[in-house]
């Protein structure tokens, strides 16, 4: 028996996903929206970053399906109680990664603990040795010399699996495309690999195959080793990094979702209505903008901490508490970051309201609210889109800094910021514990790099200035 748990951030994340899906279906039928997207889809770098971003998003969404397991009842009559621990679909998929905890630090692929311990010997004495890990490399038994061979064998197997899966995917894609274009699938396959398709399928397939290779490597190796080592309390670092993906994605997307309504409404109102409304909106965003962002966030989070500390009865589980804190962090980040977009939208609306088609609408007697929603809003959407995509990577990076300062996500929550924060002390140890930092770096870097490359493509496609430049050449 399980009981689904829907956290606030889960609900918002799924709402956002639904909005994106609706937008995709809407945009498919509008040629003027489709055109810039088609340009993005033709970019090779953009499409391989899309594949990687999608992988992150899938993991994040899986990790947002939360549930609690029912505890075994003592007798049939008593009502069922649920475990205090909230799990997610990702925990099911990663299998025993969560439960295979060692005692303390162990290096990637290690079979022994990283620190010496006093161990009772069978003959009654004591020795200070590196104890054998409970799970890492257990299948090897006593044959520790075979470790290198075992890793090589598993790596080879994974690569083979990835290549096979990649080939299979190419075939399926060629079949699907051939049906749509009405040519033979052999022709289609040839076109894909001689790069004669509009969308760079060959690059996407290559990225996907590389991604699959990583996934198969993880499946084959992580089930018997700690691929990225274990942390201070013996948790698998790979598992922690995977769980952190959701936090990073949430900070990057929910912040935008929270701030968009304000920024759009206030920006367009100020630009279109002018007069005292404009003065008020300008005053609000200048004031908020004047406060250094970190300090405003710090002030707000400190106050939230006091509030949470004084009202412990509001939260059933620690996850719910850290979830509220995450949501609040998104709201605060949104409050500090909407000002830039609002200013841009105000400027653009000021310009648009003087244009002929708005004046024509006014003279036809179209109401102000209708002009704002039907005539101005669609014409500033490109600015909104560019800002949203450009902000994403900055927000993911900001999370790490804020967690370090102590005003980020809850310290109990899995996040890259918390991992880096812990790694600071680990780097000062002798010998150095480097793998937590490396894992946080790898995951964060991949996500942020993909987001940066994608956002560049979006900006190039939607920004009228770059479009004009390209047309002029």
């Amino acid at each position: 028996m399980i009981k689904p748990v829907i956290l606030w951030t889960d609900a918002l994340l799924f709402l956002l996903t639904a909005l994106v899906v609706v937008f995709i279906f809407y945009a498919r039928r509008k040629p003027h929206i489709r055109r810039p997207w088609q340009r993005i889809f033709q970019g090779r770098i953009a499409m391989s970053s899309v594949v990687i971003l999608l992988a992150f998003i899938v993991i994040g969404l899986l990790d947002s399906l939360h549930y609690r397991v029912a505890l075994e009842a003592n007798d049939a009559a008593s009502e069922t109680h649920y475990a205090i621990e909230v799990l997610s679909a990702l925990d099911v998929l990663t299998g025993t990664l969560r439960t295979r905890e060692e005692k303390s630090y162990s290096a990637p692929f290690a079979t022994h603990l990283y620190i010496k311990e006093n161990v009772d010997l069978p003959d009654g004495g004591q020795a200070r040795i590196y104890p054998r890990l409970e799970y890492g490399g257990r299948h090897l038994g006593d044959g520790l010399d075979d470790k290198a061979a075992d890793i090589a064998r598993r790596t080879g197997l994974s690569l083979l699996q990835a290549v096979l899966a990649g080939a299979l995917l190419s075939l399926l894609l060629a079949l699907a495309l051939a049906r749509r274009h009405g040519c033979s699938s052999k022709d289609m396959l040839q076109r894909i690999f001689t790069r004669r398709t509009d969308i760079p399928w060959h690059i996407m397939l290559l990225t996907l195959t590389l991604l699959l290779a990583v996934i198969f490597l993880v499946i084959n190796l992580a089930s018997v080793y700690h691929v990225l080592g274990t942390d201070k309390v013996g948790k698998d670092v790979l598992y922690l990094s995977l769980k952190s993906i959701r936090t990073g994605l949430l900070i990057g997307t929910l912040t935008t979702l929270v701030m968009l309504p304000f920024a759009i409404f206030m920006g367009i109102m100020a630009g279109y209505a002018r007069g005292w409304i404009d003065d008020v909106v300008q005053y609000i965003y200048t004031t908020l903008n004047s406060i250094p962002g970190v300090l405003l966030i710090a002030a707000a989070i400190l106050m939230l901490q006091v509030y949470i500390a004084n009202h412990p009865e509001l939260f059933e589980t620690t996850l719910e508490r850290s979830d509220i804190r995450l949501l609040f962090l998104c709201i605060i980040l949104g409050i500090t970051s909407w000002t830039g977009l609002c200013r841009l939208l105000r400027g653009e609306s000021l310009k648009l309201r003087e244009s002929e088609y708005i004046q024509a609408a006014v003279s036809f007697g179209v109401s102000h609210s209708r002009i704002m929603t039907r005539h101005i809003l669609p014409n500033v959407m490109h600015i909104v889109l560019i800002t949203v995509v450009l902000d994403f990577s900055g927000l993911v990076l900001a999370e790490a800094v804020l967690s370090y300062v102590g005003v980020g996500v809850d310290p109990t929550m899995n996040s890259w910021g918390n991992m880096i924060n812990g790694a600071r002390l680990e780097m000062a140890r002798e010998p150095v514990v480097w793998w937590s930092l490396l894992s946080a770096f790898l995951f964060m870097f991949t996500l942020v790099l993909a987001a940066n490359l994608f956002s560049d493509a979006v900006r190039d496609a939607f920004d009228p200035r770059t479009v004009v430049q390209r047309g002029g050449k």
Partner: protein
Amino acid sequence: MFAYIIRRVAYAIPILIGVNVLTFYLFFVVNSPDDMARMHLGQKRVTPEAIEKWKASHGYNKPLLLNRDAEGSGRFTETIFFDKSVRLFAFDFGYSDEGRDIGHDIRQRMLPSLAIAVPALLLGLLVNITFALLMAFFRGTYVDVSGVILCVILMSISGMFYIIGGQYLLAKLFRLMPISGYDVGPDMVRYLVLPVVIGVVSGIGSGSRWYRTFFLEEAGKDYVRTARAKGLSESLVQFRHILRNALIPIVTGVVVVLPLLFMGSLLTESFFAIPGLGSYTIDAIRNQDFAVVRAMVFLGTVLYIIGLILVDITYTIVDPRVRLT
């Protein structure tokens, strides 16, 4: 010009009032001083007397906005709002929750912050402009393309990795300089090299990519084509025409952050244990010293507004077409 500056300073007053009201609301209305006292004294089993004592010793035992017990103007001055918020306008920051004079601490800690921030800014400017010029000069070639890709890669690395990685590589592995610390006198340079170098390196990605767009924008303008058409050498066009004009947005972008240099960098100062204002702020946040955070919010806002006014003045200097009225 002078009248303009006066007017800009006058505009700043309502903004500062707004910031003050906001922080006052955050710190005293969302959570009452009682909540704060309970937080500082520990959550459980706090006697009301202990709370009253804590409030009295920190000056939080007055009414928030209006003191009905006081006479005359005291009705308004004998309040928390006047004590803690209005006094900030006179740069009277009061005492921290630990009982230290905040104004004195700030004056003491400004210099170490500047000692890192100023060299990092100047050196960073030089490096970024050089890289941007290089990319713009070779625009469209492999140098440019790979330069831009490198910039995006550098941008995608969190600043904390630069600091931790730099500390590990240069200080711990190669032992070129101390990992962290600060000293006045001739030894200061030894401590400053690493934070400055890391500050410059972590800014290269976004900085030079941003400056590159300025150069490219200028390079596409008509006067550049005219200069080439009349037979000027390419280096003359690059340095005398493009560089000088692209410097306008670069200089104004730098001027706006100049006053904020006093605030120091949160990350750098705390990682390198430099007793500047950045580490002061972080320590205050970690110790939940609300008085210091409030003071820093106000100080940061004032410096930001000064930066905006400086930018306007700079515009009239670097671009004679701009007139302030």
